[in-house]
């Protein structure tokens, strides 16, 4: 056994202090190698990077800031991953998305935008892409994980529910952007911009087109609770009770039906108070 001399101790202390310091500095700068967890899948950012360069880079840019070569010719603009502000989430407004939210968006695509459905990619590939996309923003390391919002159980539709929903469509001022028939032509519609300042239109609720974050009733309800961050569509989590949200969802369904069958919508007339 070697005799430990003072010199040796000092050298070792210096070496290990340096190593620990470097490691701490490095860890704080780089963060843990980014991973994603979706169900049983574990994605890693290193594999995701190669996939990103094959599939995503021309729209979303080498720095993930949405400034790819194709971006000037695309409307709406590709997502800026460095801000970590996402439309389609299961988390409260202002919060980071879940890994599964990003995975679902990659799989589903975003309708009426340049983002295609990447379902033909392997599930592992999509999970790897989620990990790499997260690595563009340090928020995923700095902010604590947020739980998904709970979706209240669906209430049955009824003429009364639809009527209440119509009144809420009025009192919550949905009509100011979405218009009286939900066609996206409300008085404030032309002034709307996304958080980058690009003009965008409110969704035409009467069109029957696929909604950007998914079409199911649960999906629409979730949109009401979480809001679509980065757009003028706010969260109604502080504004409406669960029953009221379902009333609104039932009313929105009638807007789609009305357009499909060309029937007159039970138009909610402006009330003067």
């Amino acid at each position, binding site marked *: 056994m070697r005799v430990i001399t003072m010199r040796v101790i000092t050298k070792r202390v210096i070496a290990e202090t340096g190593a620990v310091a470097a490691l701490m500095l490095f860890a704080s700068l780089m963060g843990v190698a980014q991973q994603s967890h979706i169900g049983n899948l574990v994605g890693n950012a290193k594999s995701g990077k190669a996939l990103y360069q094959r599939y995503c880079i021309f729209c979303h840019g080498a720095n993930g800031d949405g400034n790819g070569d194709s971006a000037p010719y695309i409307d709406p603009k590709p997502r800026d991953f460095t801000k970590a502000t996402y439309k389609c989430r299961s988390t409260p407004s202002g919060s980071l998305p879940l890994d599964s939210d990003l995975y679902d968006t990659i799989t589903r695509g975003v309708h009426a935008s340049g983002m295609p459905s990447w379902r033909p990619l392997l599930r592992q590939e999509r999970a790897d892409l989620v990990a790499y996309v997260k690595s563009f923003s340090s928020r995923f390391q700095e902010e604590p994980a947020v739980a998904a919002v709970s979706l209240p159980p669906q209430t049955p539709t009824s003429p009364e529910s639809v009527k209440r929903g119509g009144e809420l469509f009025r009192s919550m001022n949905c009509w*100011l952007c979405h218009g009286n028939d939900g066609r996206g032509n409300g008085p404030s519609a032309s002034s709307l911009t996304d958080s980058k300042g690009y003009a965008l239109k409110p969704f035409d609720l009467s069109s029957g087109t696929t909604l950007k974050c998914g079409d199911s009733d649960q999906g629409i309800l979730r949109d009401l609770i979480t809001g679509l961050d980065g757009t*003028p569509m706010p969260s109604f989590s*502080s504004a409406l009770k669960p029953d009221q949200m379902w009333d609104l969802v039932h009313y929105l369904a009638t807007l789609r039906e009305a357009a499909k069958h060309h029937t007159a919508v039970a138009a909610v007339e402006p009330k003067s108070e």
Partner: protein
Amino acid sequence: MKVKYVAFALAAFLGALVAGDWLPRVVPVAADSASVSVSGVVKFQGAVLPPTKIDMSTDPNCMKAHPSPGTTEDVVVGANGVLEDAVVYVSGGLEGHAFTPPAEPVVLEQKGCTYKPHVIALQANQKLNVVNGDSTTHNIHPSPANNREWNMTQPPGVPLEESFAREEIAIPVKCNIHPWMRGYVAVFKHPFFAVTGKDGSFELKNLPAGNYTVTVWHGKLGTQSQQVTVAAGQPAKLDFVFKQ
């Protein structure tokens, strides 16, 4: 044996951080004879465009609250050229200090379909109470560059409490439903800031003695900075003039 060395190295490293002032110290903010204030007036020299009238007719409830049309608040200049809604704050000289935010919230009110005040300032992680005193639903939507972006609908009378974690001067806030509603939220790491009122005056209270950079920010006119040395017992005076 190895563990001991690593632990010693870690302790030495952290000790060095603290001793070398790399970890922030918490400085209690208390009025004492050694702390003074910096005060002054912010003025504007030049031609001011008359404010544009706002058309609130899209929402009958806003019309009712504004029998005469409201006006935009981009550059509000009072008598003698005093500038309202300028944010004056210490931008340099406080390095290495950390400040806990006060427990009392700051209140931003939506009244008459406008933001009152037009420009509000608070500390990072200080509570912001948003109040809807109107009879119509608003949504409150900050567009930060350095903070999380959120967007909440607020019906009349429903309370809403938020906060911002990082310093940002200043975050534009808008209501998407009522597109003329525009305001600013300035968020600071420290308590040494003030927003000028109708008289254009400001006072930064309880500053410890030292050298500081004081900056004024205005939503449309930009920023200006000045150096000031604050000595114990000698309040400093500082004026800013925006020229057009």
